[in-house]
């Protein structure tokens, strides 16, 4: 201050304000964001009121397409015979360099895109040539949220209902935006980044409630799902994944199928004292809804942040699945995929709700390709496991005991500090991570992009956080049997076997889409967007996009009556952090050991978010 000395007070004050604004401006960066019009402007032509019903309305209102989460488009213009003629119809740069995992939405001639942090929402006018942006909504999330987010700063998409777009921001807000005008209707804070909590998942809207779950299990966050009133944004209920029954919303209506899930306050008793308070079980994956049974279904993340030997017990209700009443959140049943998880097997994958003929009768089932390597078929009314079959090479367990429902864990693959454990398959990202599968009622097959990865725990590595040195296992991931790191598989859940599969060089980290034209679409981490024959797996068409693909393909009918297929390209996520986060490829344990398996990705793709829409000429 003495340098100001004899300058006039006015100038001093002015300079001070100027300096402060400079500095505070700095703290709010780095958004890495696009230069776009600041204020939401423009109007949507169509009324966002009624959503036409019928076979397929040609729209895409939620990431999973429908409550059953089939990602099946009933449109048939693009089919196995003509898909080879697909051409780029439209592109749009999101201006963001991080991983793009979101599904675009299409409602009333408008496409909506959520970017990774800073979580901007674009509305593109599909009725105009080139689909110009009508408006962009900036939620301006706190920059510091990037520092506490595990993995990459992704967002998995939005949901549309009653004229509004609902989605989550990394800094723990759920927002409702007017689908026509881009004006914010409400914005509710659900968590605290100061405690390591973030939001990355795509919400769904059920009976006037927006359902949202948190991320951050690695940071000692306690998992929850929360329902917000879609009209007002007020919190209607919240159910935790750990702790006493009253917090988990377990009451007299809770009827789990298996004995190990019955008893009082198991969310406390299956942990060392107080460990449940930071026990993980976050809800960062997918939610489905069955209107007939009136139940929502969602998975819980892995337990944390203790090592397994420091949290003896089943660690309920982590790495499992809940069925709940959407009106009040009360739990109806629970099943645990991986009791006392040791391998970071989150249980948050998609739940595909189907009516299948099993053992000669139609059963209401829930199909779940799980991180631990099994495709589960559950009775979705009761939570009974009807079958659980491996879809990849598994060493970490030896199947599921269908009598008790328990996973048979392989004792020799138990990990510990200072202990060397080799060839744990699947690796921590699982046989299949978050990337959602698709189901075709025409072929009776489930289509899933997944991984073929194993891992070693070798010795110890010294690290440092918040001024505290610590040690951890040196995790290295590598390709599983066959040498390929990814695979795209068509699975028959009734016959309980693989119908066909295609090998991929890199982990297949994108969502899947299947259409009534018997074409399946997915993308690869080196940027190929592919169309395969849904019945044979034969490659019919492919296109090289600008960056690796980890997004979710969708299909819609444009205002011109033509069918289109859309995908966001933009590499990143856990698998792609080596490119989007520019990690050091010499550090094989970076990104929790994933970088070792991805050393060649930077030579195969570069970062940058771009929408691609394809159509027939």
């Amino acid at each position, binding site marked *: 201050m003495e*340098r100001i000395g004899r*300058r006039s007070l006015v*100038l001093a004050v002015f*300079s001070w304000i*100027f*300096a402060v604004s*400079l*500095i505070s401006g*700095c*703290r709010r*960066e780095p958004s890495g964001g696009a230069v776009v019009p600041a204020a939401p402007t423009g109007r949507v032509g169509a009324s966002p009121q009624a959503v036409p019903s019928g076979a397929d309305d040609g729209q895409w209102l939620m990431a999973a397409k429908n409550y059953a989460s089939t990602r099946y488009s009933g449109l048939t213009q693009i089919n196995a015979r003509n898909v080879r003629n697909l051409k780029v119809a439209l592109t749009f740069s999101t201006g963001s360099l991080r991983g793009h995992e979101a599904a675009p939405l299409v409602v009333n001639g408008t496409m909506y895109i959520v970017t990774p942090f800073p979580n901007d929402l674009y509305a593109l006018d599909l009725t105009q040539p080139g689909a110009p942006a009508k408006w962009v909504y900036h939620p301006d999330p706190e920059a510091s949220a*990037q*520092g*506490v987010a595990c993995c990459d700063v992704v967002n998995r998409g939005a949901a549309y209902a009653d004229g509004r777009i609902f989605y989550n921001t990394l800094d723990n807000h759920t927002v409702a935006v007017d689908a026509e005008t881009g004006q914010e209707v409400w914005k509710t804070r659900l968590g*605290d*980044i*100061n*405690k390591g909590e973030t939001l990355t998942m795509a919400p769904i809207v059920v009976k006037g409630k927006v359902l949202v779950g948190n991320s951050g299990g*690695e*940071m*000692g966050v306690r998992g929850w799902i929360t329902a917000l009133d879609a009209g007002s944004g007020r919190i209607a209920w919240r159910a935790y994944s750990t702790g006493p029954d009253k917090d988990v919303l377990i009451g007299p209506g809770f009827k789990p199928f298996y004995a190990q899930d019955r008893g009082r306050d198991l969310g406390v008793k299956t942990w*060392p*004292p*107080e*460990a449940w308070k*930071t026990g993980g079980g976050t809800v960062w994956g997918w939610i489905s809804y069955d209107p007939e049974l009136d139940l929502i279904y969602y998975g819980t993340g892995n337990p*944390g*942040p*203790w*090592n397994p*030997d*420091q*949290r*003896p017990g089943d660690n309920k209700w982590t790495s499992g699945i809940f069925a709940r009443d959407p009106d009040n959140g009360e739990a109806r049943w629970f099943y645990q995929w991986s009791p006392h998880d040791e391998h*970071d097997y989150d249980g948050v994958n998609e739940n595909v709700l189907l009516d299948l003929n099993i053992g000669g009768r139609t059963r209401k089932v829930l199909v779940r390709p799980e991180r631990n390597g099994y495709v589960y078929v559950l009775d979705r009314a009761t939570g009974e496991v009807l079958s659980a079959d491996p879809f990849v090479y598994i060493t970490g367990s030896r199947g599921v005991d269908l009598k008790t429902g328990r996973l048979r864990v392989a004792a020799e693959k138990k*990990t510990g*500090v*200072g202990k060397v454990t080799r060839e744990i398959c699947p690796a*921590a990202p699982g046989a299949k991570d978050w990337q959602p599968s698709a189901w075709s009622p025409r072929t009776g097959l489930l289509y899933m992009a997944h991984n073929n990865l194993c891992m070693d*725990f070798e*010795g*110890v*590595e*010294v*690290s*440092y*956080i*918040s*001024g*505290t*040195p*610590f*040690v*951890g296992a040196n*995790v290295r991931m590598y390709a599983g049997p066959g040498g390929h790191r990814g695979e795209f598989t068509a699975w028959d859940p009734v016959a309980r076997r693989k119908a066909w599969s295609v090998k991929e060089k890199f982990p297949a980290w994108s969502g899947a889409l299947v259409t009534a034209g018997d074409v399946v679409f997915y993308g690869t981490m080196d940027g190929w967007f592919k169309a395969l024959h849904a019945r044979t797996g034969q490659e019919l068409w492919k296109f090289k996009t600008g960056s690796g693909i980890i997004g979710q393909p969708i299909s819609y009918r444009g205002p011109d009556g033509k069918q289109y297929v859309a995908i966001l390209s933009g590499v990143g996520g856990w698998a792609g952090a080596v490119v989007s*986060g*520019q990690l*050091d490829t010499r*550090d094989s344990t970076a990104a*929790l050991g994933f970088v070792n398996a991805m050393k060649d990705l930077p030579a195969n793709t570069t970062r940058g978010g771009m929408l691609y829409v394809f159509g027939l000429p």
Partner: protein
Amino acid sequence: MKRFSFLLALLLLPGCAGEGGATPAKSARELRVCADPNNLPFSNRRLQGFENELASLIAREMGATVRYTWWAQRRGFIRNTLNAGACDVVMGIPSSFELVLATRPYYRSTYVFVTRRDSGLDVRSFDDPLLKKVKVGVQIIGDDYANAPPAHALASRGAVQNVIGYTVYGDYREDSPPSRIVKAVAAGEVDVAVVWGPLAGYFAPRQPAPLAIVPVSPKIDLPFLPFVFDISLGVRRGDQALRDELDGILERRKPEIDALLDRYGVPKG
């Protein structure tokens, strides 16, 4: 004219000059440091940590001024700071930390047992059977497959049910969130806490109740679980010239640095 040039100087301040960066334009040399703005006794935005003082001391030796970039020292810290080019040095890392090029160690510290003096507890070793009976607090990290060494040491000896974890992240709105574990001993939430030395050495004397600090033993659990760590400055891999210069300063100024660490109560390992 003078006024305008002052404003101009402000305008030209590159990117993210933090506090402590009010550099006159002619002083060419800057020591660009990345540090946690809220993590005493190491560093904070008010420059009250020993790493802040050490940075000033080193900068004086270099004829430079310190310029800070603040970033919480959590996962991705090195990636977002040193490796992103936001600075050239971080003031504290374990000497065997592979992400950076480490200088010679400038101190060695140890995990310590912290107890209330009036408790009568005298715990000196992880093998003390008392540690399975009384309430024990440990720092937890929560990085997958990684944790603070005392947490591993207690678990391998069967002390689990009586152990309470205090996350090093804490609540970032509070001052120096990792310090909560020391406050927990003073408040009687736990009987014994096993805490990284510098944190305990600084916060223990600042509690309302008198606390005792005893270095843990053994110093290492076999096959390889150390409780004692060498701490260095870190520069970018490949930045040999800066590392060598810092090594020289650390050697020349060792008496001053030792005195600085003593003032902050850093236990010697």
